[in-house]
């Protein structure tokens, strides 16, 4: 009998443990217990959020692809694959390695689908930057992204950075990656064909991030309770770059039938989920797994989150074709098992059977219908504030707000030009990438205002989708598909789960309205600190298509005498505005009204103006409103602007 203390520590509830006993008909071995705990954790099984994720639309204007890991859409003859993932808790423990491994992990999700990674974005949230510890986390995260991203040769072309006290003690590091391949070249994360080989490729296995998956995701950091520090995952971008080239080269041999990267929950998740997707079983021998440390126990090998590792299903007899490619790139590649007919995952350590679990049960995390209540609802009206005495001083002050000020000092540390596709550089609303040999291009962005989502989760989430779409439209792109990273507090607390539920509903309804499918995404719960939950942050990543990339539009004003036109209505509403929060330290009120029908017409008008060539520049109004938007267009264009406010 395993005492509750042990399986509780691994994040399993009593009910879940009873279910395991039912499945196995006996006590689980330590390895089996570990495997259940990671597969059923929020980070892999999504037990508490799966029910709501089904609300997201999966169809849209373009033909969509929903894969096991990343999804995408098809345009012309190309599959555009993208996804967003979070590495919040590891980055709060060790910012540089946390952010670095976040970049490494999301890039693997892309090339594991057979796509060449062509761009990354990162969406970051920190506490007040003037506090030394927050600055330490901020510096570490930026260092990690540039250290890893620059070395792997995938340009970091965009993203956004917000600061709010609610993120102190629990930063958010959401990383998005986009990749492309010919539409018939997409690889699936499936094990197929009885007797085919299971090949382990990439770095050796160590004790990195043991329990990182479930223990981290199921616990939040109380003041001073920092002991929850399993060995931190360390990333090696050089090995990852070799892994990208080796994996794409191995796929050209046509004998790779299925492939999955070892991310959260490492070997457990990759082997069991590949078998589940292929509706087969799998047998692996841990004695064959290349190890970096001595004396590793079987459960440690199965749970290890060492970086830069892939699992492949290869035609039996053709293993050497694949193994030689990895050897050419200086990487480990060894057969560790094979596909079996019984729908079980059998894990051996030499001759000893250390785990024997039905695949369907393991991959089928329990589903919870979490309680929610409206106790966290914010009151509607906000305190009135005086009209500023000196508008000029106020504008300069607003431009100095960390949430508005230029982020050039950050993105100039990222190589945002490698692969020579970047045609609109960071600093605008969205980056634009040309496709070599094609007329069309792509625009990419990520966005979310957490304060709006705190004040009204449903409206705030809709605004996140609308603003991301606007960011693309102002570059001349037509929004095509969405990924997301849903960062919320502890789901077991009803008021936090309410904001998750309402945000998911908001994102779904907005996506339906804009005909945008949600083709992939990620959930990160338990984002809390000693004061309470972070701001509800459903980060939206969006990709759009420019039919002709030469028609791309940018933010800076161009020529003297050009007319400045404001599209849409400028209402008298300051709820949740940067002005209230930065100047008056007030975070109250109703977020700005969003009329989705008007929004669509405004975006259509802007898109047409750009397409027919009337518009020389375009910029969307967000934090700081009209004043800041005008200032940005002028500063970037090194021009002035004369504007009258009486309509």
């Amino acid at each position: 009998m395993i005492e509750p203390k042990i399986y509780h520590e691994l994040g399993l509830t009593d009910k879940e443990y009873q279910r395991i006993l039912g499945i196995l008909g006996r006590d689980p071995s330590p390895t089996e217990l570990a495997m259940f705990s990671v597969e059923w954790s929020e980070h892999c099984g999504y037990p508490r959020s799966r029910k709501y994720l089904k609300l997201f639309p999966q169809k849209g204007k373009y033909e969509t692809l929903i894969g096991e890991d990343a999804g995408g859409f098809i345009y012309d003859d190309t599959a555009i694959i993208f996804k967003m993932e979070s590495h919040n808790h590891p980055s709060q423990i060790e910012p540089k390695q946390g952010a670095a491994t976040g970049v490494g992990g999301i890039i693997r999700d892309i090339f594991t689908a057979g796509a060449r990674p062509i761009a990354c974005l990162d969406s970051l949230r920190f506490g007040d930057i003037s506090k030394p510890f927050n600055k330490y986390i901020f510096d570490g995260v930026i260092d990690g992204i540039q250290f890893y991203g620059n070395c792997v040769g995938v340009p970091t072309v965009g993203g956004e950075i917000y600061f709010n006290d609610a993120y102190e003690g629990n930063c958010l590091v959401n990383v998005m990656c986009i990749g492309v391949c010919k539409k018939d070249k997409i690889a699936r994360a499936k094990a197929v064909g009885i007797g085919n080989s299971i090949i382990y490729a990439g770095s050796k296995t160590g004790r990195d991030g043991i329990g990182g998956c479930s223990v981290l995701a199921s616990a939040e950091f109380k003041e001073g309770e920092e002991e929850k520090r399993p060995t931190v995952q360390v990333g090696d971008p050089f090995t990852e770059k070799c892994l990208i080239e080796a994996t794409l080269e191995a796929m050209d041999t046509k004998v790779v039938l299925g492939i999955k990267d070892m991310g959260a929950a490492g070997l457990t998740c990759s082997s069991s989920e590949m078998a589940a997707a292929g509706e087969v079983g799998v047998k692996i021998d841990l004695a064959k797994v290349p190890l970096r440390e001595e004396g590793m126990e079987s459960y440690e090998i199965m749970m290890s989150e060492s970086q830069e590792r892939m699992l492949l299903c290869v035609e039996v007899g053709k293993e050497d074709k694949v193994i030689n490619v990895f050897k050419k790139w200086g990487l480990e590649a060894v057969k560790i098992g094979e596909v079996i007919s019984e729908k079980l995952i059998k894990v051996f350590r030499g001759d000893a059977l250390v785990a024997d679990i039905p695949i369907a049960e393991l991959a089928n995390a329990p589903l919870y219908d979490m309680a929610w209540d409206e106790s966290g609802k914010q009151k509607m009206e906000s305190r009135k504030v005086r009209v500023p005495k000196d508008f000029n001083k106020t504008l300069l002050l607003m431009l100095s707000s960390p949430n508005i000020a230029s982020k050039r000092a950050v993105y100039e540390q990222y190589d945002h030009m490698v692969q020579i596709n970047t045609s609109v550089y960071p600093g605008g609303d969205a980056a634009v990438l040309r496709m070599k040999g094609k007329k069309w291009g792509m625009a990419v962005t990520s966005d979310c205002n957490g304060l709006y989502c705190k004040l009204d989760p449903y409206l705030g989430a809709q605004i996140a989708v609308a603003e991301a779409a606007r960011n693309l439209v102002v570059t001349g792109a037509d929004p095509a598909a969405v990924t997301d990273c849903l960062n919320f507090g502890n789901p077991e607390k009803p008021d936090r789960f309410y904001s998750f539920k309402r945000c998911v509903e908001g994102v779904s309804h907005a996506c339906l309205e804009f005909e945008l499918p949600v083709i992939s995404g990620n959930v990160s719960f338990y984002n809390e600190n000693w004061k309470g939950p972070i701001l509800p942050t459903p980060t939206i990543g969006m990709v759009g298509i420019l039919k002709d990339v030469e028609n791309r539009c940018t933010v800076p004003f161009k020529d003297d005498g050009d007319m400045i036109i404001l599209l849409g209505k400028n209402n008298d509403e300051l709820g949740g505005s940067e002005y209230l929060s930065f100047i008056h330290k007030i975070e109250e009120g109703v977020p700005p009204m969003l009329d989705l029908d008007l929004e669509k017409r405004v975006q259509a008008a802007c898109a047409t103006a750009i397409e027919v060539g009337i518009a020389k520049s375009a910029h969307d109004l967000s934090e700081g409103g009209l004043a800041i938007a005008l200032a940005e267009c002028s500063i970037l264009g090194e021009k002035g602007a004369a504007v009258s406010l009486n309509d």
Partner: protein
Amino acid sequence: MKVKIYVTHKKGILDPQGKTVETALLSLGYKNISGVKIEKYIELEIDGKSKEEAEKQVKKMCDELLSNPIIEQYRFEVEQ
């Protein structure tokens, strides 16, 4: 007083740089080497009071800035 500080990886923490240099040395024909680790070595001068106080200060500087307690450990020598 001259201070020498050695900041090294904690046991079990991956050292990608050490691994890559080891492979390079092996491929250059140095077959009898192993366990290559690339670490940091910090030298600085401290003036004032006593050796004990200098040692207390160096420890504080290491904990505060010179080493990352999560992935690194340190030792140091203070020479009169």
